[in-house]
């Protein structure tokens, strides 16, 4: 049991990558928490039937009231909240040295990045409206994706 755990936890000789990795994944965890809060807020709005005001503009309603805002009757924001929580969990485990979590973190962020691109496309080319809360989520995913690309690599 201990040997399996040792194998999955990163240990480096000089410790610099380890410190960098801890800092990187801690930052990623904090950023994903912001995304989680945004997605929970959007989920609650969708579940209670309350609508969002984008500074008096109808764009939020166009986006959140559209058929694209639900998958199988479930608000897409709920899937977003679950995805952000997954990213947060992987980031935390990666910060504590779990190698596999690092890979899963990158994969999840990559998947979310692809879904975000699609959702941005829907807003831009199909609905012709942007929801600010969705744009905040997109910005967070772009930031996380940027961090994944720029993260320190083991020497």
């Amino acid at each position: 049991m201990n040997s399996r755990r040792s194998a999955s936890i990163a240990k480096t000789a000089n410790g610099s990558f380890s410190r960098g990795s801890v800092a990187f994944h801690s930052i990623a965890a904090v950023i994903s928490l912001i995304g989680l809060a945004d997605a929970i807020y959007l989920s609650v709005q969708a579940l209670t039937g309350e609508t969002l005001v984008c500074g008096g503009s109808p764009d939020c309603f166009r986006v959140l009231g559209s058929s694209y805002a639900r998958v199988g009757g479930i608000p897409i924001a709920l899937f977003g909240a679950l995805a952000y929580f997954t990213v947060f969990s992987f980031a935390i485990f990666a910060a504590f040295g779990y190698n596999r979590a690092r890979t899963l973190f990158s994969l999840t962020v990559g998947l979310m990045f692809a879904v975000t691109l699609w959702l941005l496309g829907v807003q831009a080319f199909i609905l012709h409206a942007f929801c600010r809360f969705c744009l905040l989520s997109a910005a967070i995913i772009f930031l996380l994706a940027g961090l994944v690309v720029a993260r320190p690599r083991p020497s």
Partner: protein
Amino acid sequence: MKRYAPFVIVALVALLSLAGGAMLYHAKRLPLPDTPKEGSLREGTEGGHIRGPANAPLTLEEFGDYECPPCGSLSAPLNQLEHDYRPRLRMIFRNFPLVMHPHARDAACAAEAAGLQGKFWEMHDLLYKEQSAWSRATDPRVLFSGYAGTLGLDVARFEKDRDGDQVKGRIAADEKRANALGVKTTPSIFINDKPVPSASFRPSALRATVDAAIKPVITP
């Protein structure tokens, strides 16, 4: 200890997320009383939209305009009243869109179109709740479609229905009754067909009026 730290952090965030989401959900739901199913309430041939039992001894009939701010302010207290006095009170809502409010008729059409899909009261409550947003919009019909989507309605059908004759007919019937009763402004309230003075439209005064009206009805 460090070995368990990530599990503890993740579990803690999961708990906080669930608790935070539940609290937010509860806070958002709290101002709205239970909305009974439209089908069980739409009884009789008197028209209008009825909330509460058909055999309630007291009937409160409201003529409202969705763009009228006092109607909006009165919406939640009236819902609360119906909730508190159930099953002794039933409420009837009738449309009386005023000409001075440019979007009031569209809003009435939206509520009636939602009613055709069994969600009149949900749309009624939402229109009042969001009054400040859509009443300032240049094209509130787009917002109403958004509301319909949010309420889980068939948006295409909703958009077709709101311009249809059935919806227009319902509003015209309400206006006909309003004219018959001499309604000139909104909100106008009648309790068992007796007009309630506008001075009693404050929540506490309205409650007192209902109390006063209910006593002789339920006392043998």
